[in-house]
């Protein structure tokens, strides 16, 4: 009811449009989610020129696909390889690439994840069921209000010849945060 009170007061003052609030909720509940990010990843796997452009300037590339940040933030894509595994956190609050992944899950916003992701990333990964070879370095990216990261997971073996739509189904939300891997076909 405290939220309701704010809405009423701001509406009476003409500072907000209640219809716009419904539109925003509908967008985030129904239209924006990890499928957007999966689309970007699947295309990066399939199209080398797209991948190069994405790694160079993710903001421009994903905007072209219609996934632009409503908060004017800058997007950065980081790619997992045999040598490096990337993982994303926001240690201060919960900055997250909304246009690509939607609203973050509860654990992403928890103190436990925010504190431990930087301090002991391998243990956090183990909690998510991900064990990496010792030779793979783990790099943790701390999101801010201005910069949001998208992890491009490694393309699973045995997916040669799969089209973009089929590849999208292998790209989980967690794999784009770096707390998971892409699914095997």
């Amino acid at each position, binding site marked *: 009811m405290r*939220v309701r009170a704010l809405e009423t*007061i*701001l509406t009476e003052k003409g500072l907000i449009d209640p219809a716009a609030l419904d539109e*925003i909720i509908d967008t985030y509940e129904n239209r924006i989610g990890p499928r957007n990010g999966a689309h970007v990843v699947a295309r990066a796997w399939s199209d080398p020129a797209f991948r190069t452009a994405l790694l160079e300037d993710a903001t421009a590339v994903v905007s072209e696909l219609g996934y632009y940040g409503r908060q004017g933030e800058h997007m950065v894509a980081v790619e997992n390889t045999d040598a490096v595994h990337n993982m994303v956190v926001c240690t201060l609050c919960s900055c997250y690439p909304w246009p690509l992944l*939607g*609203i973050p899950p*509860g654990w992403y916003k928890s103190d436990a994840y925010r504190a431990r992701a930087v301090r002991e990333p391998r243990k956090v990964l183990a909690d998510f069921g991900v064990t990496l070879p010792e030779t793979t370095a783990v790099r943790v990216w701390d999101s801010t209000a201005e910069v949001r990261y998208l992890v491009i997971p490694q393309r699973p073996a045995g997916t040669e010849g799969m089209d973009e739509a089929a590849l999208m189904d292998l790209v989980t939300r967690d794999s784009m945060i770096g707390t998971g891997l892409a699914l095997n076909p």
Partner: protein
Amino acid sequence: MTRPEPVFEAPWHAQLFALTVHLNEAGRFDWPDWAARFSATLAEHGLARELNGGDDYFAAWLETLEALLAEKGWAEATAVAEMRDAWEAAYLRTPHGDPVTLDG
């Protein structure tokens, strides 16, 4: 893919999120400023106990937004408290199933 969990755990989380995003998009405040204030509230709350990222996360969010709106002079604390009471009274007097309105 496994079925995703609900985007918002509670309707008021969604309302609060939308309200904040809308105010930002309408140019009432910029996002880095918001994030800095919100981070400070979270850090403060996190000192007292471990936050689980659910209700307590949005409670910190609400506190931040209320403080920001009061500071800007758009929604003074007393006005918000009065309006909250008015809504509470409206909920209490409205028969179950009827739409809740302030003018009763």
